[in-house]
């Protein structure tokens, strides 16, 4: 069944979902009333990528440096202060880019004539190697043309002081400290609270200004095209959204649903959209300002003082207003059971037009609801309705019977379906299901929620939610209105599952409070009609995005701020990553998400920390070296984080020379801790993103770590040690960062042990992400290099949200008790996310605190409040609605085995860190044993000797076995500690689809790709080979098999594989001539090659980061990896699937 909201990754096929039709057909039916500004708000739906961001709202612009400035020069508006230049002579001259005539003396002091405390004497007496040896690049490196003469060094290197010189340490700070004062640095962190009233007068939009968007009916259609024609270059980063292809599962079902392909065309090419985009953006930006002022006056007079209050979770805040409001009389008792269809009598005419008629909607029942004006004639006669309702009913029953069909696990050998598994369907009525949030975004382990905790305990299945809230979407209704309608008590956003008691009141579906419908909500801008609150887009789609007003800001929205921290020690230079990194940055420089205020900075470190002065106006970047790593300080606080656009040339210069600067360094130490502290000091005033590139264990300064891995223990079957961090430094650092809205992303490129368990903490609690490239080397490991390049590109240009918080609300009676993912849980249901990126998922475990007997549906709402890279405050709201059931059989029927597996995986990670790995493994096995035995004792009536599972859970043992053999949890197979810990980190943060692949890979035979069932993406036909079981018995020597493990793919070529395939696809004459370390499919001009590579690249495009492809022969080094992933087979240390089933059976009958 298609979800109403297309959430696919941007392929045209995905557009076949109902959303676009819905918007296009509305105007045909409804009279086109020009809006003419009668109503003080403006609504339109637009693609998220629509170029609305380039408008700057001056009053909202953060003027971090104090005085308000023009929009164009935010943050960097401090030009080289005359004061600064005049002050220079009195300053410590080492700060200033010294004139070349100073001469470079390789043996020590750089500019002897100017340095009062002469460095050469220090270096010689203290036995420090001459400075030239630390940075020989300046004078010795012959490769750089700029270095031909000593005087032309593009970077001026100045050392503040050698670290060992005690008297000097005392002297230097006094030299250094005065500088900030002379630069007239305004107070740091002087974000003024935005005065809400200020803007009302100046930015009130004229009614005409808001016209273009609503009057153009097609403007409502979200189109990815809009940005290409009207978007400013800055919106280009979002292009990545479109490169996402639909995931396999959804596309594969399309033919079944039978959506005609023609329907997919309209949203693709829609010229009016592009033309209307820029007026729309202008009007929205103005509206945004206007709405912020008007609503702040009406609803909230005092600015909130913390984020908790902002996103609005506290009951206390709303209590006074609740009491002053006239309590509406409620005809129903507060917790009255709501039958499915009742509250939605006039459901979504647009859907009716689009959806297949078998999914028709029941007639308005009108109970507790006055239907209000109906523009749409019901297209179905009552007989039709009746029959279709019956159909739906039988369909549902069939489905339930199918889900509960007993599968005898030991007898059924081919248990894996040939097509990828979809999430199961809930018992909801079809109309509610259509409105529901896409399973890609929001998924529950149990699609039918048990009524009580007792029932849940009886089923022995975990209850939890899997979220992917910031996923790239192609269709996202964006709503600008002056009031965001929320429940007064629990602050839930209005959503499709609320019920309208009458035109003026709606009942919250989470706390059951009856709220008033605000006047503005009565008007539906989509149809330009009045009095249809239930047809507003907020009530039509389960995923919406609001442009938030200033009520949702603690401070003006921050600009995009990026800081890159590079390891430049010997080890790092050896690996050659810096070159790739700088290259990638140069290439994607203009695509970094942000607006005109975007700021960027660079820090490098080995045993010292180096800063780069990139202040506009300098002729070349300056390098400033701070060697006092015990007490790190920022040499020139103002000029290290610079405006991306104003200092563009300097930054590019720096990126060009950076890789060559350290090529002959002999510094082996790594002062990561001090570098991080420095980075934090630079970022704390604004917030933003720190990207740390590290290649070895931090060896000096705070946060230094020792090697804890014993290589002999890698394949032990006994307990695995050191899964927990060694120090709390990184955790505390991450918490500090999180408090200042700074996220830390870690790139670990290392051949050796680097203590991932400790280092990953800096990202874990600051909502960053971790990337790991084991044995990275620019020459020896080309596959990793390619992956690093591609990943970095995606990383740099992917969408980013700043200073975000996410709150997950659920219906009264349910509560969240554990969170998994990268974030900091600030209060009971509030996740603090310094940054949010589209690739991270979250998992929560729930419990049922109170019985849900009184209700028939429960809802979950995840609201993500963030600042977009364009400086807009936005709220993305997802709502999921699930039915409540009272029988164990129904609970089993709705079990989502993939979600359950993923939830158990995250729980097992926690267990292995807090307790031990073997405990976690036991717990996983017990989860299967418990649930299957519970199923047998409660639902099944077979005798004890047969191992049965409901059809919905038939893959459960297989997945758990796969999990036990996964890198994170396996024992007995040699696994490096870092790789194990990384796999655990991935389990916690990967969204479900990607995680499932890493747990249970998909195996395809690709030497004779079938034509039937292939899908068309763009103009290419993508073959869809069936998924095979992961067992060596399925392999044949005559074939070629592709195993898709998420981040890695293996193409196994059988010994007797047809030479036709080998020559046409791989480009080699025979099996023997295929090289051992082949990692690329060549682009050959043959049908077979094109078909194969289109399939592989289609698989690759469905995920954000590159999957390395290894071509595996029986004698290649990757062979063992390939065969380890055949989880159904027996290995030296692990059971085969059949043995595992026998083990489970034994456990159950105990």
């Amino acid at each position, binding site marked *: 069944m298609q979800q109403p909201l297309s959430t696919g990754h941007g392929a045209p096929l995905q557009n076949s979902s109902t959303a676009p039709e819905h918007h296009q057909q509305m105007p045909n039916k409804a009279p086109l009333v020009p809006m003419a500004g009668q109503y003080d708000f403006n609504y339109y739906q637009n693609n998220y990528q629509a170029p609305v961001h380039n408008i700057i709202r001056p009053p909202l612009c953060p003027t971090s440096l104090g005085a308000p400035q023009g929009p164009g020069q935010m943050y960097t508006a401090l030009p080289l202060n005359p004061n600064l230049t005049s002050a220079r002579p009195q300053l410590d001259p080492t700060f200033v880019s010294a004139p070349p005539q100073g001469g470079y003396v390789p043996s020590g002091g750089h500019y002897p004539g100017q340095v009062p405390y002469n460095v050469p004497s220090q270096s010689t007496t203290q036995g420090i190697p001459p400075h030239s040896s630390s940075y020989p690049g300046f004078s010795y490196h012959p490769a750089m043309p700029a270095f031909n003469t000593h005087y032309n060094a593009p970077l001026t290197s100045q050392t503040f002081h050698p670290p060992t010189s005690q008297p000097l340490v005392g002297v230097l700070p006094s030299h250094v400290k005065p500088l900030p004062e002379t630069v007239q640095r305004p107070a740091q962190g002087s974000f003024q609270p935005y005065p809400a009233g200020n803007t009302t007068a100046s930015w009130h939009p004229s009614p005409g200004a808001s016209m273009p968007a609503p009057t153009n009916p097609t403007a409502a259609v979200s189109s990815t095209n809009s940005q290409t024609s009207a978007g400013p270059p800055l919106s280009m980063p979002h292009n990545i959204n479109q490169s996402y292809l639909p995931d396999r599962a959804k596309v594969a079902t399309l033919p079944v649903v039978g959506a005609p392909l023609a329907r997919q065309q309209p949203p693709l090419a829609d010229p009016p959209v592009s033309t209307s985009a820029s007026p729309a953006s202008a009007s929205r930006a103005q509206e945004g300002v206007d709405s912020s002022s008007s609503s702040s006056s009406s609803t909230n007079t005092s600015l909130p003082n*913390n984020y*908790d209050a902002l996103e609005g*979770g*506290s009951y206390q805040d709303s209590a006074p207003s609740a009491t002053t409001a006239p309590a509406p009389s409620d005809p129903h008792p507060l917790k009255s059971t709501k039958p499915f269809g009742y509250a939605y009598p006039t459901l979504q005419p647009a859907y009716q037009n689009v959806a297949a008629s078998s999914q028709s909607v029941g007639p308005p029942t009108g109970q507790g609801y006055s239907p209000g004006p109906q523009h749409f004639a019901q297209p179905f006669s009552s007989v039709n309705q009746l029959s279709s309702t019956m159909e739906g009913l039988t369909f549902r029953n069939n489905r339930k019977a199918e889900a509960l069909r007993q599968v005898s696990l030991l007898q059924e050998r081919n248990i894996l379906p040939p097509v990828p598994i979809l999430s199961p369907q809930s018992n909801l009525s079809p109309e509610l299901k259509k409105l529901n949030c896409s399973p890609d975004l929001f998924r529950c382990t149990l699609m039918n929620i048990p009524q009580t905790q007792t029932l849940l305990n009886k089923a022995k299945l975990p209850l939890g939610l899997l979220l992917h809230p910031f996923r790239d979407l192609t269709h996202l209704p964006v709503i600008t209105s002056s009031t965001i309608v929320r429940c007064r008590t629990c602050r839930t956003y209005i959503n499709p599952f609320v019920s309208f008691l009458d035109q003026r009141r709606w009942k919250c579906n989470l706390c059951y409070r009856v709220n008033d419908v605000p006047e503005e909500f009565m008007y539906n801008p989509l149809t330009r009609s009045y009095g249809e609150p239930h047809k507003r887009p907020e009530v039509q789609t389960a995923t919406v995005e609001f442009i938030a007003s200033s009520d949702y800001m603690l401070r003006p929205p921050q600009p995009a701020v990026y800081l890159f921290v590079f390891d430049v020690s010997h080890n790092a230079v050896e690996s050659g990553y810096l070159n790739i990194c700088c290259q990638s940055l140069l290439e994607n420089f203009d695509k970094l998400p942000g607006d005109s205020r975007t700021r960027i900075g660079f820090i490098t470190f080995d045993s010292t920390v180096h800063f780069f002065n990139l202040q506009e106006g300098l002729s070349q970047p300056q390098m400033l070296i701070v060697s006092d790593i015990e007490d790190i300080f920022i040499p020139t606080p103002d000029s290290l984080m610079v405006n991306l656009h104003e200092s563009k040339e300097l930054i590019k210069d720096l990126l060009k020379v950076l890789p060559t600067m350290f090529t002959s360094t002999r510094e082996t130490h790594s002062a990561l801790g001090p570098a991080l502290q420095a980075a934090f000091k630079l970022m704390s005033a604004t917030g933003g993103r720190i990207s740390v590139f590290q290649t070895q264990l931090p060896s000096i300064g705070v946060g230094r770590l020792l090697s804890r891995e014993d290589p002999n223990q890698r394949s032990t079957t006994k307990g695995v040690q050191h899964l*927990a*961090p060694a120090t*709390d430094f990184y955790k505390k650092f991450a*918490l500090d960062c999180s408090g200042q809205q700074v996220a830390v992303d870690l790139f670990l490129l290392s051949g050796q042990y680097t203590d991932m368990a400790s280092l990953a903490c800096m990202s874990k609690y600051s909502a960053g992400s971790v990337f790991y490239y084991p044995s990275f080397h620019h020459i020896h490991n080309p596959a990793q290099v390619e992956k690093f390049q591609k990943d970095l590109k995606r990383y740099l240009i992917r969408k980013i949200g700043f200073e975000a918080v996410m709150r997950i609300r659920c219906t009264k009676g349910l509560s969240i008790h554990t969170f998994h993912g990268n974030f900091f*849980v600030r*209060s009971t249901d509030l996740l603090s996310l310094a940054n949010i990126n589209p690739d991270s998922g979250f998992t929560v475990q729930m419990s049922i605190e109170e019985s849900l007997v009184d209700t028939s549906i429960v809802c979950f709402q995840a609201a993500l409040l963030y600042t977009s890279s364009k400086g807009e405050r936005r709220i993305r709201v997802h709502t999921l609605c699930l039915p409540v059931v009272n029988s164990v059989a129904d609970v089993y029927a709705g079990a989502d085995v993939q979600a359950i597996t993923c939830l158990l995986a995250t729980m097992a990670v926690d267990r292995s860190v807090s307790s031990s790995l073997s405990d976690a493994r036991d717990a996983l096995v017990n989860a299967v044993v418990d649930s299957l035995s519970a199923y047998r004792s409660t639902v099944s009536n077979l005798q004890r000797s047969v191992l049965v599972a409901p059809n919905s859970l038939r893959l459960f043992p297989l997945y758990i076995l796969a999990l036990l053999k996964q890198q994170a949890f396996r024992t007995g197979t040699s696994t490096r500690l870092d790789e194990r810990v990384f796999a655990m980190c991935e389990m916690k943060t990967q969204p479900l689809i990607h995680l499932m692949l890493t747990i249970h890979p998909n195996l395809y035979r690709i030497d004779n790709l079938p034509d039937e069932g292939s899908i068309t993406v763009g103009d290419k036909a993508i073959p869809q080979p069936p998924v095979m079981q992961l067992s060596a018995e399925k392999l044949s020597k005559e074939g070629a098999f592709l195993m898709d493990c998420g981040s890695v793919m293996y193409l196994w070529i059988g010994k007797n594989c047809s030479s036709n395939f080998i020559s046409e696809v791989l480009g080699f004459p025979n099996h023997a001539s295929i090289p051992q370390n082949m990692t690329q499919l060549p682009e050959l001009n043959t049908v077979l090659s094109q078909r194969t590579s289109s399939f592989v690249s289609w698989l690759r495009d469905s995920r954000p980061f590159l999957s390395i492809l290894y071509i595996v022969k029986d004698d290649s080094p990757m062979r063992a990896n390939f065969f380890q992933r055949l989880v159904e087979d027996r290995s030296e240390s692990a059971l085969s699937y059949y043995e595992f089933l026998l083990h489970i059976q034994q456990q159950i009958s105990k």
Partner: protein
Amino acid sequence: MEALVFILSLVDCCTLIFMAVYFIITLSDLECDYINARACCSKLNKWIVPELVALGFVTLLMLVSMHWFIFLLNLPITAWNIYRYLAVPCGNVGVFDPTEIHNRGQLKTHMKEAMIKLGFHLLCFFIYLYSMILALIND
């Protein structure tokens, strides 16, 4: 002498009661979202060692003054406190870890523990009071 011992332990016990109340208040503040996890944990972690010292002091005092019953009464809870202090993994910020306090019902466990301690200290308070009066009368 006897009286002095009990007067000291009485004072010590009062401190412990206050601490337990402080723990309960702070934890319930966290439960109600009045403060965030970071602030709560840093507040509470500060008092872990003083609590340990106070408990250890009274236990030692009883051992030295050879009040075996009261010593044995205090021993398990002192041992538990020491164990809890030592069992903190090196990656955690303290006994109360802000990143974990909201997970797996830890908050409730901490709350329960603080309640039990409060009850225990109140019991001890009356025992000390009784013993002190007894000692004063005997003198």
